[in-house]
């Protein structure tokens, strides 16, 4: 087993943590994607997961969400096996390239309301409290004025905010966002940062953000995890800054920088 530079706490911390991966390995066919990866996100923590394309970030996210079964190791969400978690609404998920088809006849409010279903029950009616949470999530991403617009009519940045609101609508304890601001304008990135800060500061929710573009949130991060098949770095962003690595500039090149630094 390859030890990560900053091993996570042992199983005693698993229940207190929001999400824990211990010694996780995964391969697609004969191609290894993740090798002995350990990671822990605690309540109220804001953690960034960075790494180059093909480093295994999205696969790790799918493992952490319980969408894939690891070849080795364990993944626990809120102390339960990630694949058997009952209250799945506790995890909000913004997938990569979350955009709507241009011809999708659905309003912003309808799309955001879909995010509430995991909490309200998929076959039940949405109650007043559900609609309040939905409207609050729309407000969080500053789209209240556009809530009755067809989502296909919005810009790419606005659409991504819609999908972030969808993930926030269930009022999750953990938000996992996979490249949510890739290619969006600075204004949308700023609003995205505000939404995450709000989730962390006001609701005590945890955030795991996968992104190449950490400049907008660099000041708010508690930890940065650098992944390239295995964990190369797991620690305070200031440790990286002390080594001359700027998150805003070098996110994509971080593994290369860290290999040089080690």
């Amino acid at each position, binding site marked *: 087993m390859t030890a990560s530079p900053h091993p996570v706490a042992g199983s005693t911390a698993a229940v207190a943590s929001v999400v824990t991966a211990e010694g996780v390995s995964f391969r697609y066919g004969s191609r290894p994607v993740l090798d002995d990866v350990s990671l822990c996100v605690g309540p109220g923590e804001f953690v960034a997961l960075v790494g180059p394309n093909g480093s295994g970030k999205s696969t790790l996210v799918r493992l952490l969400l*319980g969408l894939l079964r690891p070849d080795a190791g364990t993944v626990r969400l809120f102390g339960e096996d990630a694949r058997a978690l009952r209250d*799945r609404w506790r995890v909000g998920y913004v997938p990569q390239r979350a955009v709507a088809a241009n*011809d999708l006849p*659905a309003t912003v409010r309808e799309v955001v309301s*879909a995010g509430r279903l995991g909490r309200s029950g*998929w076959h039940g009616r949405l109650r007043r409290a559900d609609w309040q949470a939905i409207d609050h999530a729309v407000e969080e991403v500053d789209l209240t004025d556009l809530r009755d617009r067809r989502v296909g009519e919005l810009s790419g940045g606005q659409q991504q905010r819609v999908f972030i609101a969808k993930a926030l609508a269930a009022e999750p304890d953990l938000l996992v966002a996979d490249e949510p601001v890739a290619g969006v304008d600075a204004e949308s990135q700023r609003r995205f940062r505000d939404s995450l800060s709000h989730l962390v500061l006001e609701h005590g929710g945890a955030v795991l953000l996968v992104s190449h573009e950490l400049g907008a949130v660099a000041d708010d991060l508690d930890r940065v995890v650098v992944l390239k098949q295995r964990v190369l770095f797991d620690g305070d962003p200031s440790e990286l800054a002390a080594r001359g690595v700027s998150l805003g500039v070098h996110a994509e090149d971080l593994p290369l920088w860290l290999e040089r630094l080690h």
Partner: protein
Amino acid sequence: MPWPFDRDFMRLALAAGVVVGLCAPLIGTFLVQKRLSLLGDGRGHVAFAGVAGGVLVGVWPVWTAMAAAVAAAVVIERLRSRGRAPGDLVLALFFYSGIAAGIVLLGLAHGVDANLFAYLFGSILTVTPGDVGLIAVLGVVVLVVVGVSWRALFTVILDEEAARAAGLPVDTLNTVLAVLAAVVVVAAMRVVGILLVAALMVLPVASAQLVARSFVACLRWSAVVGVVSVVVGLGSARAADLAPGGAIVLVAAAIFAVLAMLRSGRRAQLAFARGHETGRAGPP
């Protein structure tokens, strides 16, 4: 009832047609958004094999068509969701196998039963009270299931993986939708025929997408267009002695064409008005 629905056979046709005109576009709304517009066609061809099997063994073909279409729906969905083969390939496999099996079974039955044409091209003017009863029951099943699960089906349409992460039973919901599509195909067999059944699932939705501002509105508009197509199509068929199945589908296509033209005209008008306001309008 007033002309053209003043005769018993027209009233029965209207009852069967309205149920199908209401239900087919509701299911079609989800299929179109999932980019599975031709799914109804695939189901129809498998249902054809079921009809031929019924003719061969002497069982009411509706039951054998239902069994074949539902079984195919479940198998196709399993193959698609497990990524064993691309969705369009799976559909093509069942599409052609269904037709081939139908032809072989009819060959074994020594000839083409005259009633077969009623299933292939529809025979809404000959539906019996028993047919209408069955179609009504199938319609109620479709309406109840869609009423209960439309939000969940909509969530799956938006993003299957996110829906799975939220704990929704995505595989079950996809199978439910596939089975409902099979049920609608069987219900619509006598109305527009196996060869045109997919049209009633898709064309009203295409029209609704042009005018609806929300998903709920799209469901409502598609059902309205479906019912209007049936009523106008049946009336036209009576008035001009046309084949009712084809007339219904042509009315649905005409509604789409008119709405599309109105929309593009409106867009051009708006673009001209905007250009005029900013002084960028073209030469008078």
